[in-house]
């Protein structure tokens, strides 16, 4: 594996037009990545990905919006800066038709330590979330037991 650039691919049993919508539209991104997403789907547009009640917010800058082939954006810039070519990670989705489906390839390149930080932040956030998932049912059970007494 090359350091500093991450590459992954997956085969999807859906046509490229559908896969492109899923990777590039805020209403779908909310289902597979952040808790909220907002941006205009055009190159140069700036938007944001939001986790929790704005517990974590990342600005993104769209680079390529070429349906149904390529969707690319910059993200993870140092505090307050807008993500661009020199200060952030570049995520690129490439879609290739394959029979009735699509080969979806994602690459993330830029400063490796940033990518790692981002992954750790996200992981930490979801750990937190899972913590509540475990805690709330327990609390509910406890509350019921108190009422029953």
């Amino acid at each position, binding site marked *: 594996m090359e350091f500093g650039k*991450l590459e992954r691919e997956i085969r*999807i*049993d859906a046509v490229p037009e559908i896969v492109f919508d*899923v990777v590039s539209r805020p209403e779908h991104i909310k289902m597979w990545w952040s808790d909220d997403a907002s941006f205009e789907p055009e190159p140069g547009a700036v938007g944001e990905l939001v986790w929790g009640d704005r517990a974590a917010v990342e600005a993104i800058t769209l680079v390529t919006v070429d349906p149904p082939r390529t969707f690319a954006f910059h993200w993870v810039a140092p505090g307050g800066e807008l993500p661009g070519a020199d200060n952030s990670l570049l995520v690129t989705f490439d879609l290739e038709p394959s029979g009735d489906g699509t080969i979806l390839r994602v690459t993330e390149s830029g400063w490796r*330590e940033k990518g*790692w930080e981002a992954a750790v932040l996200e992981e930490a956030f979801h750990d937190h979330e899972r913590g509540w998932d475990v805690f709330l049912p327990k609390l509910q059970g406890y509350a019921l037991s108190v009422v029953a007494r």
Partner: protein
Amino acid sequence: MTAAVDDELWSAIGDPIRRRLVDLLLAEGVGTPTSLSDRLPISRQAVTKHLAVLDRAGLVHATPMGRERRYEVDEAQLARAVRQLNEVGRTWDARLNRIKRIAEQIQHQKND
């Protein structure tokens, strides 16, 4: 695991010459600035500087040998760096699997 250490680890391994140095040390077991500079298009002084960065990140260890220092790779720390890199990969694998599920569900609805 502190952020400072990890930043050092990543910038240490982010440089192609330093990765080449780690490769050479892994292949040969040990090396000195002189033996390593013979194999690379950079001076002994430059090799010494890069080795110092790798040393600070804990990726190599030095033992004095005569007038030079003998370096070898800390495999545990290298394994840790690789593990962190894989962590990033797994995060994207999880996202891609969710993308696949959503897209296939939409396709399925269209076909019905």
